[in-house]
């Protein structure tokens, strides 16, 4: 079916401005296939079902809207953790600021190096999970990333890796338009933690494909930076083998537009996937969108979605979460909760929870709430001498606690909580 003219025009205008990166034959082929997917689907517009709440035009436009830089005097995020730092500045790898890409039980290389090799394991993953995730919901911005992202990292964990890998995305140019594509394969029985932080660019498209093999574990914690004006679309695609574990947590503060998509396929029995997010938005420009799709395609798997948003001064929060239980995926345990705390009357929270179940022996539950600060709790805190704004922050942190608890490493939880407290206190001053 031909695309509507507007969509076709917008898509070709955007594509004309981009060039396919060079590489080995298999990589070029994968990129061409991704480009064909983009051309067939067209880039998103507000008319698409999964973009009804979030206007994608700034993500689709030929030129990236500019974004002022944040002067940041904070201690580095994850600074207390012994980690392997890999730094990208406006979407370009920066060797000088990065640690050597070596570690015990782990292999790391740049995407551009991996895709230049004629034989590489990444061939089985690059664009593969993204392509699988195009049905039943189209994600053309992800295909655009596969086609054109030239940089990123390729990671393979072969043992229980002690040191987390920390991808740091620095934003130094007001007009940068960056795309990064990262691949992770956690081999059978292996375990690793991936940390990500930083605003990255004025406009940022970031894609992560994760293959979690049987009995493996993947932990993911990211902090999307405080830049007020950056726009981002991120995709996380994961495939989980038997008895594997996947945990992903995202903390977002500010940003004009953030769309985080997460698509997980539980393909091996007894696997477990947890996705959580805490977002703090301030101002009418703020829009934060979590779009999650979890497919249960094996027996005895567990999935959990916990998303919390605190909105003030006209901010908007969006949640679209789906659990699909395929025929035969018995003993599925699916849980989904999305909640917003609206600090004033101008804010809005738009939620679309979906369950689609084709097995008869499953336990799936979902809930979604929006509410204001509990006045009784507020009075109790004030009556003990805690000023209203400080009391609000305490209640905000309490509201977000359930999402933060999804971070397994307690040191990281403390870091996240401390940072959040700092951000809230900074706003109070």
């Amino acid at each position, binding site marked *: 079916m031909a695309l509507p003219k507007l969509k076709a025009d917008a898509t070709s205008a955007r594509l004309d401005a981009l060039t396919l990166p060079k590489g080995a034959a298999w990589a070029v082929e994968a990129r061409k296939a991704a480009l064909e997917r983009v051309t067939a689907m067209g880039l998103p517009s507000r008319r698409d079902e999964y973009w009804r709440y979030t206007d994608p035009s700034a993500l689709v436009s030929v030129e990236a809207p500019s974004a002022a830089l944040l002067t940041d005097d904070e201690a580095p995020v994850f600074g207390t953790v012994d980690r392997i730092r890999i730094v990208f500045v406006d979407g370009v790898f920066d060797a000088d600021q990065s640690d050597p890409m070596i570690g015990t039980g782990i292999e790391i290389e740049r995407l551009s190096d991996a895709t230049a090799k004629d034989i590489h394991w990444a061939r089985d993953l690059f664009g593969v999970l993204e392509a699988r995730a195009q049905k039943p919901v189209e994600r053309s911005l992800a295909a655009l990333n596969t086609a054109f992202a030239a940089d990123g990292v390729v990671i393979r964990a072969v043992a229980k890796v002690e040191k987390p890998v920390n991808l740091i995305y620095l934003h130094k140019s007001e007009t940068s338009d960056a795309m990064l594509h990262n691949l992770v394969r956690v081999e059978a029985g292996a375990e690793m933690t991936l940390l990500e932080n930083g605003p990255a660019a004025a406009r940022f498209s970031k894609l992560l494909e994760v293959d979690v093999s049987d009995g493996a574990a993947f932990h993911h914690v990211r902090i999307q930076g405080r830049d007020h004006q950056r726009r981002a679309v991120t995709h996380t695609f994961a495939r989980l083998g038997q008895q594997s574990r996947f945990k992903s947590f995202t903390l977002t503060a500010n940003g004009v537009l953030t769309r985080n998509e997460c698509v997980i396929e539980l393909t091996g029995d007894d696997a477990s996937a947890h996705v959580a997010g805490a977002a703090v938005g301030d101002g009418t420009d703020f829009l934060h969108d979590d779009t999650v799709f979890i497919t249960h395609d094996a027996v005895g798997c567990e999935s959990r979605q916990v998303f919390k948003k605190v909105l003030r001064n006209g901010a908007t929060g969006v949640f679209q979460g789906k659990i699909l239980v395929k025929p035969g995926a018995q003993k599925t345990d699916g849980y989904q909760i999305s909640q917003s705390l609206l600090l004033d009357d101008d804010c809005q929270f738009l939620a679309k929870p979906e369950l689609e179940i084709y097995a008869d022996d499953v336990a799936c539950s979902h809930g979604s709430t929006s509410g204001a600060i509990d006045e009784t709790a507020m*009075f109790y805190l*004030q*009556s*003990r001498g805690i000023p209203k704004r400080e009391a609000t922050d305490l209640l905000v942190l*309490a509201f977000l*606690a*359930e999402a933060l608890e999804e971070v397994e490493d307690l040191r990281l939880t403390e870091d996240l909580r401390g940072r959040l407290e700092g951000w809230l206190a900074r706003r109070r001053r």
Partner: protein
Amino acid sequence: MLEIKGLQVKLEAEDKQILKGLSLSIGAGEVHAIMGPNGSGKSTLSYVLAGREGYEVTCGTAELNGADLLGMEPEDRAAAGLFLAFQYPVEIPGVGNMTFLRTALNAQRKSRGEEELSAAAFLKQVREKAKTLKIDAEMLKRAVNVGFSGGEKKRNEILQMAMLEPRMCILDETDSGLDVDAMKLVAEGVNALRSAGRSFLVITHYQRLLDHIAPDVVHIMADGRIIKTGGPELALEIENNGYADILAEVA
């Protein structure tokens, strides 16, 4: 210490008059009790003094050591030395009891221009005071009042009072929902805090709390006013004869 004159208060939502010209004077170091039937306005009085929203003061004044209480935010009243022990202490999931106590204590110190208490000094103090109230370390670690029994909640109120060291303490039906042993424990906590510079207003339905916390003055409240004031013997009279006689006498 606390000086209330001709206080008239109505509920904002219902336009209903609750307090109808209440006057009360509590001197430093004194313990006053207010007794009265349901619906006489006892809890409203405590909320209005603490600064809860939803009430409109239409007439009268309330001063704490000469400062106008009614014009202050609740947190400023607390910093000025007012403390309300709630009839129904509020559960706040996600906020740790220790975080709550420390934030409150330091906020009050800060607003009085004092130094914040260090984490170590705070911890030492809270452990000592918790011990005398038989509050164990595990309880301190939990979220504020979450999963606490009725007795634990009331003990937690007294712990807060002990930590914040207010000058004027209002106890709103602190005995409700307590068994005899728990009430004794709470009363001991309160008695330990009695001093020349600290006053108490004990709101209760029953004489039994006053067996443990001996009042200097007892007030009977009905229909938004103090209708009778006397010594501790007044409480005994109520216990024996109920409110009917006094109400009839005044009417």
